[in-house]
């Protein structure tokens, strides 16, 4: 009997994990759609913040198991496809920054919002550096540094707001999952 419950719990945990991974992925994809949307304020194009990068950073720090490398790769690749840019450019850049940041996560997470924001600033910098290198490698020409800088700055500035939104989303999904477990009498 207890073996059956354990097995059921294990299956539920796996199903729950897949659904759970779905939330950060979906949040990243919605962020990506906003990133490429033609938004113009006062007749000028705003350097759109990299919303997918914010989602990747948030979950890489808070719940890395919900943002595994293949999801980061997929988000980058979809971004390349939607923007029509060189395939592999953003997946490479995101993965490089993700790898470094997750190995250094102890230095940033759990030390206050300011430190986390600083950590995100480092992630933006790493991503932009990797993107510039990859871009120069593929295109064989110099990259518009001003544009990269503007995009990096807007991404960095918007993070506290986006991070708070992602935090609420994470809390809600976590509560929903707990309720699901209690309802089905499962202890995971």
């Amino acid at each position: 009997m207890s073996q059956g419950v354990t097995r059921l719990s294990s299956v539920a945990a796996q199903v729950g994990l897949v659904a759970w991974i779905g939330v950060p992925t979906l949040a990243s994809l919605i962020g990506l759609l906003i990133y490429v949307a033609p938004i113009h304020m006062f007749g000028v194009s705003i350097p759109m913040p990299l919303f997918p990068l914010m989602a990747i950073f948030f979950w890489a720090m808070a719940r890395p198991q919900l943002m595994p490398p293949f999801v980061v790769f997929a988000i980058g690749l979809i971004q390349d496809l939607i923007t029509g840019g060189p395939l592999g450019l953003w997946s490479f850049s995101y993965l490089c920054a993700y790898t470094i940041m997750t190995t250094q996560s102890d230095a940033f997470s759990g030390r206050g919002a300011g430190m986390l924001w600083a950590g995100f600033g480092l992630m933006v910098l790493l991503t932009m550096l990797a993107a510039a290198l990859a871009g120069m490698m593929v295109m064989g020409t110099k990259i518009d540094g001003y544009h990269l800088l503007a995009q990096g700055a807007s991404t960095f500035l918007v993070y506290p707001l986006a991070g708070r939104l992602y935090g609420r989303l994470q809390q809600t999904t976590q509560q929903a999952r707990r309720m699901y477990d209690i309802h089905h009498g499962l202890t995971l």
Partner: protein
Amino acid sequence: MARRGSSGAMVWLRGFWARVSIVLFIGISVALLLSQGNTDDPQSFTQVRVAADDVAAPAMQAVDLPLGSFSGLGAWLSSNWKAAERVRILEAENRALRQWESLSHALHAKILRYEQLLNMQGEPEVRVLSTRVVAEAHGPFVRSALLRIGRSDGVSEGLAVVDPRGLIGRIVSVGKHSARVLLVNDLNSRIPVVLQGSSVRAILAGDNQRDPQLIYVGKGFVPKTGDRVSTSGDDGVLPSGIAIGEVVEVKNPDGSVGYRVQTYANLSTMDFVQILARQPAVPPELDPSEPEIEDLTPANAGDTTAPDLGAEQ
């Protein structure tokens, strides 16, 4: 919770599979990048891109609904900002445009008369398809836009895309319900142009900067700031005479003087655009009363027999 998350991150990364997957996916990304290093093949992965565009275009339209109203609010605010001054400027512009209008009517009539005298065969008719930009990329790596119109609407590769002010780019890939526009300032954009008033040819080349540059300008000719640039139609793809912009002189980082074109169309705030589709040339219809041309291919030539002139004699 954060502490648990961070230690979780370490555990996750220490795992063998995590390391393998990171290396694997970085490797795949690098392989993808290197496979596109060959710039002779700009249409690499076209099928994948077209399929992705077909999926993304309807999704973008759904997202655009709430975001469009956000943009609209900005436009409304900006239009009411300094309204009186804007009215004064517009009135002055309107007066100047009226003069140009009467002049253009006179010139149009004159050109029509000349064309009649010369029995000139005009340019093929152009069909206009209007649509809206659903996604755009203005990053440092690509300058493109996604349209919610595709092959099912009669769009094909190479067609010119304009806004009310001038050329913005050309169609580079077409899906069933989506089309991607390569903007004139994209790194891969090359458009043959003519400098109006001088008939000097040049190439308009994008380099992912705001204004595309003017290269291969006719030998010995020095463009001036303010020279108007339009398509020459020499590529046989874009129609000739589409307005693009005006020449501006710039100083290159090495100190030399370069020329760029300030486009009439605002490439960073596109909304509604038009695709100029040339009507395909219709082959002349055969008159049924006229005898058909005899097929003299070797296979059929054997059936014909030479008249036996000797028999009559």
